[in-house]
């Protein structure tokens, strides 16, 4: 499983979720590709991100299996990852 993490330096929630995700990565070994909404504009456009950040796109064999938007707790994110791993 792979995760595309789309955030922005000016987005307070993104800064919080960066920390949350780093905590998750201490528990789970998941390849994470971080994109910046402004710096990596072209790549980001390919994912139809919409107007709310941050966005976590979970992929399996380059197929999107789940998308998580906005602010979530560490426990929530850990559960989401576990559920996806068990699928």
């Amino acid at each position, binding site marked *: 499983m792979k995760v595309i993490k789309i955030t*922005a*330096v*000016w*987005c*307070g*929630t*993104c*800064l*919080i979720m960066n920390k949350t995700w780093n905590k998750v990565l201490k528990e789970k070994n998941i390849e994470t590709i971080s994109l910046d*909404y*402004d710096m990596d504009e072209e790549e980001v456009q390919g994912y139809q991100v*919409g*107007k*709310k*950040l*941050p966005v976590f796109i979970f992929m399996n064999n380059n197929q999107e299996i789940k998308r998580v*938007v*906005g*602010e979530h707790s560490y426990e929530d994110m850990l559960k989401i990852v576990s559920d996806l791993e068990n699928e």
Partner: protein
Amino acid sequence: MNRYLKYLVVLVLSFILLLPSTYAKDITLYFFHGDGCPHCAAEETFLENHQNELKDINIVKYEVWGNSENRDLLKKIGKKFDIEITGVPVNIVGNTLVKGYLDDSSTGQKILNMINYYRDNDYTDYVQELLEGNTEVVKTNDKATEYKKKKSTHTITIPIIGKVDLEKVSLSFATIIIGLVDGFNPCAMWVLLFLISALLGMKDRKRMFIIGFTFILTSGLVYLGILLSWINIVVKVSTSILFRNIIAVVAIIGGLINLRSYLKSLKEEDGCDVVDDKKRKKIFTKIKTFTREKSLVLAMLGAVGLAISINIVELACSAGLPLVFSELLTINNISGIQSLLYVLLYILFFLIDDLIVFTIAVITMTSTGISSKYNKYSHLIGGIIMLIIGILLILKPGWLMFTFK
């Protein structure tokens, strides 16, 4: 066109700011007396002994025994209020008259009651009207002299916050709450965070502190100007009930808009709303340009320019709360230095989230965000506050007069 509109708003606000303004709803006690009249002298002493309590009251004295003009005025006042005046002292506030002076505990207390009545209720200076030529007869209000300043019995229940005794809640507490709620809207925070990220790239803590602090300080000063303009407008119009009700309706509408935003946000994820691309990129370019300036002064000027333009745009983002705050100051007869202190207190708490984020960034040299959940609650609490104040402004303006020492 948009750019000119922005400069027009600044022009109008600064013009209003410079307008000379008479602060607050001034209550005037007209004291007609005679030199050598013992009762008048007794009242004179009484008024002196109560100077502290009457700080907010203008006392205008007319000696009638030696001055025929003053005597004529007193006669006209008798006609204005359709009342027979045979002697002095005579005291007038609004359309209430107190004739003669027995002693402090009776007549003195009546005068204090009369003044308290007009502090807590609508007040029109009919003697001033008469002096301006309006001789239309006015019915006297005789119950004002019996008015007892109610001990705080006004309690209301606010959802979440619970029972609140409005008379005890200090104006400073209300200032802090409204300032905090006003400050927690996301409008300018994203600019500060981008500025911090750009400055972090410089890896120069001192320079980062100077430029970042310049941005926040300028934001505070711009908002200070905006608030003082609001107060200047409200003070001018607040003596008329019509305008006070218009402000009340604006507050109620603002409150409903805030509550609607809160309800809308319940259905959405907590996160950052991406600001319109063009505007965002324009600001990024500005920030990148001035943060890379070799000269620190030019970089600071860039920060000042950015802060001014951002905070004017943000005016629309939080126009409701400053207006409600200004009305609160005005209705409490707060003016001059005291009103400036309240404005500074407001701005301190308005900027507190920016100060926290910036201080952490300077200390840790990393950028931290504030959860967007607080924006949601700022809509909720801001909405409730504006609704309550708007409704009270119409139904019970007296309740909004906090007693505080």
